């Protein structure tokens, strides 16, 4: 298949190693971590010791330097077994910002321990009043001699209550002419006076993943903790998401693949009206369409990742992959649960957990609506994307 032809031998080996690890290890933790909303620290340590956590981070910063696609293949395999546990690969979330825009000192200090799985990173963008509209960020960072003083509240922060490093978007110039101007990014360390985090509980899905509200009350950070350029925070955030949304596309492909496999197995074994479900035309069509959609989503995700590995992610291709794969994942997981019938609905099956886990994929890392908007902007030449290269039709 094309999705296989695109991969190098090493990338295939990474995929297989990730598959074996997830297949053998995840079943030990999946149900309990979901039920208890418990972050799988032990599993993170195991995965890190095998090199899965920093797969995409360059070797000089403690990672494995295998590229984005190799990392994404591990993400796919982890999510194929369990989405919540698959989030252990998101403990690097935010370190990408430091790698893209940080100073050499920042990269050397903050990235290697995260790449080795010894420290956990998080990104603090969302606020109670600023989700998709991140230019509405109110958290302020006021210049105060050699320091910046940060005040504000961030919410729905992945890894928020377990993180060692917080990558924070804050407003440095309140009077800037446009809302998207005057924003800057800082890295704040756990334990900084005035920094507090409260774990948010009772999430619908990915309950093994930590989500928190993070409070900054007169948190002083030295000037050296400014990541990138003052006032360029919005643009930096957009570039960051263009990259990290590719991970999400692979999360979606993974959970869809897992749900499909469960559906196929169930349909082959469950009998109704003295036939296997797999012998009913209505089920056969479901399975055929599910598999087709997954392969299409996988190819789009691959395209976005290959583009990023060639140099720079294309915002249009990233948005397309994330939008489509997340959409497909909703459809496939829902159809799989439908095939499982009452057993799927009763909640103690993996498919029930997937049904809850999958929902976040059209919400976090850019809602479905935002992805569509980015796609449209790419098509219309409002964003620098290959999707803008459209020929005029001769019959216009």
């Amino acid at each position: 298949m094309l999705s296989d032809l695109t991969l190098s031998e090493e990338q295939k080996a990474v995929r297989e190693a990730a598959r074996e690890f997830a297949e053998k290890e995840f079943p030990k933790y999946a149900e309990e971590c979901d039920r208890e909303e418990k972050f799988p620290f032990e599993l993170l340590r195991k995965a890190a010791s095998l090199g899965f956590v920093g797969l995409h981070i360059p070797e000089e910063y403690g990672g494995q330097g295998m590229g984005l696609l190799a990392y994404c293949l591990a993400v796919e395999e982890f999510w194929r077994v369990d989405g919540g546990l698959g989030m252990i690969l998101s403990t690097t979330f935010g370190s990408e910002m430091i790698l893209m825009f940080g100073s050499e000192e920042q990269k050397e200090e903050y990235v290697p321990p995260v790449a080795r799985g010894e420290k956990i990173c998080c990104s603090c963008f969302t606020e109670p009043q600023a989700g998709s509209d991140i230019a509405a960020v109110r958290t302020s960072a006021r210049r105060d001699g050699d320091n910046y003083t940060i005040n504000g509240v961030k919410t729905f922060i992945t890894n928020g209550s377990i993180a060692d490093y917080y990558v924070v978007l804050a407003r440095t110039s309140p009077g800037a002419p446009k809302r998207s101007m005057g924003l800057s990014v800082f890295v704040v360390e756990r334990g900084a006076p005035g920094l507090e985090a409260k774990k948010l509980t009772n999430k619908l899905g990915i309950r093994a993943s930590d989500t928190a509200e993070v409070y900054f009350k007169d948190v002083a950070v030295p000037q050296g903790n400014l990541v990138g350029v003052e006032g360029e925070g919005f643009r930096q955030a957009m570039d960051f998401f263009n990259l990290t949304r590719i991970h999400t596309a692979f999360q979606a492909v993974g959970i869809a693949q897992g749900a499909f496999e469960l559906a196929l197995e169930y349909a082959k074994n469950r009998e109704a009206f003295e036939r296997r479900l797999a012998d009913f035309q209505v089920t056969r069509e479901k399975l055929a369409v599910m598999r087709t959609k997954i392969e299409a989503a996988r190819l789009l995700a691959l395209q976005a990742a290959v583009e990023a590995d060639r140099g720079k992610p294309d915002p249009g291709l990233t948005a397309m992959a994330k939008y489509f794969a997340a959409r497909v994942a909703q459809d496939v997981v829902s159809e799989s649960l439908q095939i499982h019938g009452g057993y799927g609905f009763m909640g103690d099956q993996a498919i029930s957990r997937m049904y809850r886990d999958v929902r976040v994929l059209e919400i976090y890392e850019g809602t479905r609506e935002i992805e569509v908007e980015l796609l449209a902007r790419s098509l219309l030449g409002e964003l620098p994307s290959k999707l803008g290269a459209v020929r005029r039709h001769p019959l216009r």
Partner: protein
Amino acid sequence: MRIFVLVKHSPSPESLLRVSADGKSLDPTCLTYDINEWDRYAVEEAVRLKEKHGGEVVAVSVGTNCDATLRKCLAMGVDRAIKVPAEPGFDASMAAEAVVDVLKCEAFDIVLSGFMSQDANNALVGALAAAKLDIPFATAVTELSVEGGEARAVRELEGGYREEVALPLPCLVTVQSGINEPRYVSIMGIKAAKAKELKDHPVKLGDATVSTERIYAPPTRRAEIISGAPLEVAEKLIELIRSKGVLR
């Protein structure tokens, strides 16, 4: 210590099985391949022997499509790999012949292989290779140690019994599953494997000793319902459990 380990790139038993149009082989299209499950234990045991005694582990595989499995061995800690590129259709005797050709060109202290393959289930290649090399061998080994020029192996017998044997080196051992806990392939291992040698060792093989007449799906097996008086049912059940080796 120079340790050789024989590995097979085999279809997974969980693959969808389809008989080819010729009725004599499996359609490879639907098969998913991996390292033979028993060989995974053999590789782990080989790497552990090296970690304890020092030396080198070399993996040998026969077939044209076994690169991925050999690379996996290299990623697990094997030092180099040798492929005998034989076209599909070789039988156990030919595989043993290929392996022996490789081993005759190398110096070795011990050869490990899986007890059997997950596809053919012959459990023949190891024993045949040992016979052709005229070296001692032990099969279905569940514990292994090497000290003072000999290998001590605990073999699994029927009915839950064990047998301990001593074999002078060089020797060959086929390992039973569960002898150890095979390590996961690490990303560091995959990267290290890139720099390791994987070379071809072409061998002109003789004719097959076994020809396949027909491959077919087995008739559906049915569960047996034990009926009768409670005492009679219990006795039959105990006998059944005993015959499977659970009770002695």
